[in-house]
């Protein structure tokens, strides 16, 4: 295995009564990366995450954690934010954070010190002696995030981390995730929200129908799916060109014409110089498919065949 791989999933299969939740999965998650784990509902993401968290065991295959076969000593090195959030409603904020820290083998003192640090950082100082049930949803989400990272885990697994956050808090959490990565943590980020994947992930892995359908760095994945589409925004009339556009229309919003060409990348310069003679080019860009488009394409492929 690669020395830069932090978590390796080898041939993992897990079945429940009558059906396979995941089948021969292989993933390699690079150290210090933010890894987007994608897949439609019911694809097997949660099962994989539960196996990594040792909540359930795989039927076959193995998981390698930082060079060792996954074992219970790794639990305190993992932080997990489940999709379905849950806190003890009747417990006070500070008390609850300390309790969960201690469940992750932190001493009472250390747990309290770190809890106060994070409470201060997230502006929850006025709420630390309040019961969780008195908190707004966004604040409760912050508390949940603190629980996940309090013990400074090397592997952080976030299942839909932004659900329930307003844009301001989403940015705050994004910044924290980046910061945690900078400090050496590896992050697995499971979501349906593709825009956020492109924005913060370095790598993606996609599961569909219990199997891996795609894996790689964001750039590689997008490049491998490109259809050689180039989009031009311009003022003026195209006239006669050697290259005929796939489509042309007027963008009302920008008050510009837009044409899409499908050409071999080696011809892009020729196209530009030809266009330059005819029209005033405002922008010329290669259209890479978004992760969302790739995702939908992959899911559709799965359905058809």
């Amino acid at each position: 295995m690669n020395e830069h791989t932090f978590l390796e999933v080898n041939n993992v299969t897990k079945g429940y009564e009558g059906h396979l939740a995941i089948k021969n999965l292989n993933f390699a998650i690079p150290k210090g990366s933010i890894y987007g784990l994608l897949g439609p509902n019911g694809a097997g993401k949660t099962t994989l995450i539960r196996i990594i968290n040792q909540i359930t065991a795989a039927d076959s295959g193995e998981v390698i954690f930082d060079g060792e076969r996954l074992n219970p000593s790794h639990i305190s090195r993992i932080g997990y934010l489940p999709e379905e959030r849950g806190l003890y409603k009747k417990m006070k904020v500070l008390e609850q954070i300390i309790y969960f820290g201690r469940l992750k083998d932190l001493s009472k003192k250390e747990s309290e010190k770190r809890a106060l640090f994070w409470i201060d950082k997230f502006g929850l100082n006025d709420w630390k002696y309040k019961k969780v049930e008195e908190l707004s949803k966004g604040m409760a989400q912050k508390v949940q995030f603190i629980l996940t990272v309090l013990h400074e885990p090397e592997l952080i697994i976030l299942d839909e981390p932004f659900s329930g956050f307003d844009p301001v808090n989403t940015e705050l959490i994004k910044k924290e995730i980046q910061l945690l990565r900078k400090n050496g943590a590896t992050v697995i980020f499971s979501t349906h929200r593709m825009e956020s994947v492109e924005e913060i992930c370095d790598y993606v892995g996609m599961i569909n129908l219990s199997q891996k359908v795609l894996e790689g760095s964001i750039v590689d994945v997008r490049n491998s799916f490109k259809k050689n589409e180039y989009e031009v925004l311009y003022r003026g009339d195209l006239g006669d060109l050697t290259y005929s556009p796939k489509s042309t229309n007027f963008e009302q919003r920008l008050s510009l014409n837009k044409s899409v060409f499908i050409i071999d990348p080696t011809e892009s310069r020729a196209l530009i110089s030809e266009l330059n003679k005819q029209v005033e080019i405002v922008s010329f860009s290669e259209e890479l498919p978004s992760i969302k488009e790739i995702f939908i394409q992959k899911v559709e492929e799965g359905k058809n065949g």
Partner: protein
Amino acid sequence: MGKIGLITWREYITRVRKKSFLIMTILAPLLIALFYGIIIFLAVNDSIGQETDKILVYDESHLVEGKLFSDDRLEFSYTTDWEHRSNDSLSESVYSGRIYIPDTFGLYNTRGVVYESENSLSVETKERINNRIEKAVEDQKMVQLGVSESAMDSLKTHVSLKALTLSEEGEAKSSSTELNTVIGMGASFVIYFFIFLYGVQVMKGVIEEKTNRIVEVIVSSVKPFELMMGKVFGLAMVGLTQILIWIIFSGILMSVISFAVFGSQVGDIADAAQVGSLSAEQMAQFGMNDMIGNIISGFMSLNIPFIMTSFIVYFLGGYLMYSALFAAVGAAVDAETDTQQFMLPITLPLVFSIALSTSVVLRDPNGTLSFWLSIIPLTSPIVMMVRAPFLNLETQWWEVLLSVGLLIGSFCFTIWMAGKIYRTGILMYGKKATYKELFKWLFYKG
């Protein structure tokens, strides 16, 4: 163990700190005392809420006319106006019923007595009327046989049985059956209520964690088994705390009352009772009647350490066994409303044992049925507690050992079983498990 301890602590502290715990701890004994107070009051003053039944008697034989005993329950009036008998409507009269005694009725032919009323007769009233008529006839037979009234009075006898328990050496210890009953029943009722109350609390806690989805976060830090055991232990501690508070309070209350009522005499009587030689003269000297003396000497003869130990053992054993089952039920369902189906097999043996305790076991604490019920683990925590004050440890020690041994064995088994169901169940959402599925979960690995 460290994490079980931490979970136990959380379960304990969050519950004990609640206001409702304090309120229940204070209120529950008051409510129970009030409840039993009302029952005892009504039992003693059974005339309350009871109207006097006025009964009109048509005695054609004139045998019992004017001789039926009337009191505040039954009041007999007599008439000779049987002409109206069939015409009169009872609903317009003050009488609740009427008795017709035919002229063929005699000391040796008591057939043909008829009671008529608009409402059907209760068993109790029927019995009472029968007795009154029989008594009247018997009295007349006595007179006919030449027994004088003073001789009849002297026939009345009252015997108070003093129960002694013999040790193997033949040493007699006096025991009070009434006291044994009260202590045995009291202790088993406490166990019964605690298993129910705290078992259901364990179940609710599991369901709460499941519906709040906290369980997913926790089981990524601790094993499901540790979580379950922490919960079970935490609630056991809450229960013990509550009992401890009650023991301390009732201890204070008892000493205040006994000091106020009996003063320093109690000590003297107790000393005398311990020697086992409290004579009637001494009783009279202390100004006590038989009953109280019996109770005090019975109390002194009780094997208090044994009863206390068995209370703790059966309380914990029974609670651990049942609460593990309750935890499994909580794990198997999504919402509290779905618990019915799985609750029944758990509550049935509990209700069964408390019901039998008040009847069969108390009637014959050392009988075959009582023996088996106190050996079978599902019923033993309650039944054995009823029997405990009646047991003679020198000859019946093996029964206790067997029962405790089986209880420990079966709570290990139920905890293992519940742990398996719990582990699978807590992460199952959206569907209600069936018994078949629960059975399968027992054999899932990892």
